């Protein structure tokens, strides 16, 4: 007779583990299934973990979790071919408790987080692939794994199996992604001496810095590149919408190579050794692409529910919150002894009322807008660079004359109107 748990969580990433942790802590019997050799072994993100949502789950986690560096400076680079206009904020309040965010290496962090769930009583089984949900009378009652005697049952199955959720697809919740709903991110971890990192990025001690790079870093395609500091390594990556890569016939690793050799970026990477190469899909379709996330005996969380805020590079925090909200819903369902869609639907309502839903709704048109009008990246960033260059080059021209030239350089009155309209539109989709 196959074993039965209260809950099976499929996938030990931030969403699944947050869910399993919360359930186990409340004495719910929970099985956490992970396909990788260990949690984190197959997980990828740019590298920034936000403190708030993690701390809602484990207060003071940063004191013992394997974090890399608390971020005290966030730079934003508007990149042209041979120039960059950079905006940055650095604040010492981010360098001490309670901190704002951290860089983490997922292979280490996810493993630690899953161990915490196990400490609470969750049963973690690695190297096991969930192939499909077991459905009886239209209700999800368990999971079929790829192991011999591999069927396992539960009152509720939580699908946290990531961006390309096989199980959500098997239930018909997910359709195949369209290229404009998903971004492809490639990243390298580059080894570099701790001291050199601190000198090169103007940091003291443990402090960290993140750089988001727009414009030429994606050759004008919608997307970003990033450069983050770990303890003794750097994460350099680039992510773009799949549709953009296809349209421009670009290969992601070629784009990453382009970023790495860009004259504005190259100096940061001097003397590094490649340690790892990672690639992953990111669901960036936003609110409009959100699949069905509740059914009889089943909930969908994290990337599998497409909970990513591409504009603000947020995902793991939304994943964690969704995992916790799912767990809380399940705990109530257990108390009521009712695991139907009607009861579990509370999850969806709470999620959409939380910051997760609010942010997804706020930016529901943003990605689509920038995807549709590529001139933000293709034209305006170079324009900004030209303007900065003209303004700050001392060549005997008066400042008033410089301003006049910059204004003229933007184009005719019609073109200026178009830019004003575009900026207004951009403000509208972001507001």
């Amino acid at each position: 007779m196959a074993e039965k748990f209260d809950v099976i969580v499929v996938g030990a990433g931030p969403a699944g583990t947050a869910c399993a942790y919360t359930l186990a802590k409340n004495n719910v019997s929970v099985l956490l299934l992970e396909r990788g050799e260990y949690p984190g072994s197959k997980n990828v993100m740019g590298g920034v973990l936000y403190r708030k949502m993690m701390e809602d789950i484990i207060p003071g986690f940063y004191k013992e979790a394997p974090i890399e560096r608390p971020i005290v400076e966030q730079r934003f680079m508007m990149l042209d071919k041979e120039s960059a206009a950079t905006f940055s904020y650095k604040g010492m309040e981010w360098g001490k408790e309670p901190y704002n965010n951290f860089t983490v290496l997922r292979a280490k962090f996810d493993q630690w987080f899953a161990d915490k769930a196990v400490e609470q009583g969750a049963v973690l089984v690695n190297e096991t692939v969930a192939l499909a949900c077991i459905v009886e009378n239209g209700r999800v009652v368990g999971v079929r794994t790829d192991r011999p005697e591999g069927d396992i049952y539960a009152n509720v199955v939580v699908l946290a199996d990531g961006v390309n959720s096989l199980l959500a697809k098997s239930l018909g919740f997910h359709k195949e992604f369209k290229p404009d709903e998903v971004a492809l991110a490639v990243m390298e971890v580059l080894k570099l001496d701790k001291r050199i990192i601190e000198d090169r990025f103007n940091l003291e001690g443990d402090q960290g810095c993140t750089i988001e790079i727009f414009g030429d870093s994606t050759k004008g395609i919608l997307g970003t590149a990033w450069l983050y500091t770990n303890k003794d390594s750097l994460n350099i990556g680039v992510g773009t919408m799949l549709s953009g890569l296809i349209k421009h016939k670009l290969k992601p690793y070629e784009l990453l190579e382009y970023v790495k050799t860009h004259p504005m970026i190259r100096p940061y990477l001097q003397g590094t050794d490649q340690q790892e190469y990672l690639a992953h899909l990111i669901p960036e379709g936003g609110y409009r692409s959100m699949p069905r996330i509740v059914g009889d005996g089943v909930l969908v969380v994290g990337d599998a529910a497409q909970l990513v805020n591409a504009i603000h590079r947020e995902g793991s925090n939304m994943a964690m919150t969704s995992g916790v909200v799912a767990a809380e819903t399940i705990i109530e369902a257990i108390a009521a002894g009712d695991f139907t869609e009607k009861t579990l639907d509370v999850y969806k309502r709470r999620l959409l009322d939380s910051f997760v839903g609010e942010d997804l709704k706020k930016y529901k048109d943003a990605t689509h807008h920038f995807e549709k009008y590529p001139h933000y990246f293709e034209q305006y960033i170079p324009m900004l660079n030209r303007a900065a260059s003209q303004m700050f080059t001392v060549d005997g021209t008066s400042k008033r004359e410089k301003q006049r030239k910059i204004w003229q350089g933007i184009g005719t009155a019609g073109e200026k109107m178009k830019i004003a309209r575009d900026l207004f539109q951009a403000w509208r989709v972001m507001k």
Partner: protein
Amino acid sequence: MLHIVACIKQVPDTKIIKMNPKTNTMDRSSAPAILNPYDAHAVEEAVRLKARYGGKVSVVTMGPPPAVKAIRKCIEIGADEGYLITDRAFAGADTLATSYSLTKALEKIGTLHPIDLIICGKMTIDGDTGQVGPGIARRLDIPPLTSVNKVVELEQEAGIAIVHRKLEDGYEVIQTSLPCLLSVEKEINEIPYSTLPNMLRAARYQPVVWSVDDLGDVDRTLLGLKGSPTIVAKVWPPEKPKGGEMLQGTSEEQVQRLFSILMERKTLFRDVGMRKGGGPQ
């Protein structure tokens, strides 16, 4: 009831481990700890014998507390019980001290449930010596059979086992008395994908943990660094061969080229000739 005990070790994955270029020692933090691959086959063989003859499979290891993970791996394969002996006093043990500590653990396990057969992996991938198995057999005064690649038969009542030992150009069939100790080759079996019930059992499994004091009558001078006469004086990576010429072309061309090289370097050719007891000059 037949009782088979496999001795296992958690080792760094030497396939991916990095060497510290300054000290020439293994940087253990650079590689995950895994169950020694040879030992997995030892456990699998024990599990197969249990399937054939009934009984119970235990595993024992000496190591730091995280070695529990290696024991869980054995439970996944199908072992019934796991024993971890862990104590600061064991630290720094060479193969002599390790075999002593494991012998003490095996003696204690034997008092709980008499042991019919001990199976070890051929060697560990971090030490490569293959000495601990035979060392245990010597201390327990039971026959050690190394390089075993097949267990033909096991007769607990008659107290005999028949096994194949791998030789350079074949194998020998050996009958031995029980209890005995086998150290096994990888080829002895293939490890199947574990069942989900075994995975679940392993995930929850807590092994029996013993310190030195739990092992009873132990001579502490024989443990750990103190009990280890071997010292690693120096470690260095093998020197990479420099230069050389790769022979190209068809077999015939390569032989021609090799022949002319050997002819050119007459000294080498003469040496070869001399060793053979006078060949062509």
